[in-house]
């Protein structure tokens, strides 16, 4: 028995609704948006971004205000582009620091606003930056420094009096 025209229509509508629901689910799971939030792009250069990725958050006072949109190597430094939401003014003396949520958590860029009245525009650069704190480097340095200070305790007793100036100063 063939389905009536009304049944075919209802099945068709349900099929379309299903496809729409699937599309919304895919977009939300993939954290994609059809229409990007209105915003502007700022740039910042760092000596070390230590695993920061595109899509990571830009935060101000712990609140997300944007995302990292591009990372490139320029003049042997990491240059990042970030999309900042419209209506969030960032001044020219702001400091961009790379932070980690928790000890091994995701990296994000934290903005600390400065005292300037000059507000950055689309395409401007945040000049003052603070690179990522690399835990492995800090541990390595701690081990090396605590190890070597023990070995050379005897040598160091006379070192203050026997300084050789001008070894490495120019």
């Amino acid at each position: 028995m063939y389905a009536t025209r009304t049944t075919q229509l209802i099945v068709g509508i349900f099929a379309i609704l299903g496809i729409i629901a699937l599309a919304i689910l895919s977009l939300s799971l993939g954290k994609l948006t059809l229409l990007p939030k209105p915003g502007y792009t700022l740039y910042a250069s760092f000596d070390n971004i230590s695993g920061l990725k595109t899509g990571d958050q830009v935060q101000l006072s712990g609140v997300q205000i944007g995302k990292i949109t591009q990372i490139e190597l320029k003049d042997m430094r990491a240059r990042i582009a970030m999309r900042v939401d419209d209506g969030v003014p960032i001044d020219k003396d702001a400091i961009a620091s790379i932070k980690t949520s928790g000890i091994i958590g995701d990296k994000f860029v934290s903005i600390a606003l400065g005292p300037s009245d000059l507000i950055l525009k689309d395409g401007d650069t945040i000049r003052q930056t603070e690179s990522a704190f690399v835990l492995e480097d800090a541990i390595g340095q701690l081990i090396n420094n605590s190890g070597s200070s023990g070995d050379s305790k005897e040598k160091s007793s006379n070192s203050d009096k026997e300084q050789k100036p001008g070894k490495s100063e120019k």
Partner: protein
Amino acid sequence: MMTPTSIQRIVPRRAIAMLTVTAALVVCLAPSRFLAAAWADDPMSVVQTTVNQALEVLRDAQTPLAQRQDKLRQIVSATFDFTEMAKSALGYHWKQITADQQQEFTKAFVAFIEDSYLSKVNDYRGQQVSFLRMTTDGPQYAEVNTDIVEPEGKDPIHLNYRLVQEGATWKIYDVTVDAISIIANYRNQFNRVMNNQGYPTLISDLKSKQAALAASLANH
């Protein structure tokens, strides 16, 4: 051969007078312009001079401590822009306090920073400084990277100076120690206190810390 009279015939008297005045002006002005340019275009030499002068004072164990501290204060205050550092350290809260409070904060912050480094004079243990490189960010900003080479084979400390050109001179406005910016660090701390307790707590904390440092300096 051309005689002076023949020159005068070819070049009119007025033109000679103009040339003479121009030459005199060039001779008078050139040295000062040259010196200004030489001073202004080299952030590396500004840092080198300051650091080497400071190291000289630190090594001079013969001079009484108070005199060494005075010398160090003069050397550092000539190159560091402490007023701008105070303003930057307070961040956006700077605009929320009154002009009198801004003055009060700047005075307290500068005294605190000065006493902080002066209290370390006796901690010098023969460290050397290597001047690594200079990078510029536009015509007005520069960064000089240095390493403090520790004795006894310890890892060096990476110390970078950030400078801004103010007129004809370069001034240091921030220092990063192993990638941690001093100004960013103070800004985060002050931000926390300003948001939670407000300006009166911040200024009284800063003054009491500075008083404790000043007392320890006086006891040395």
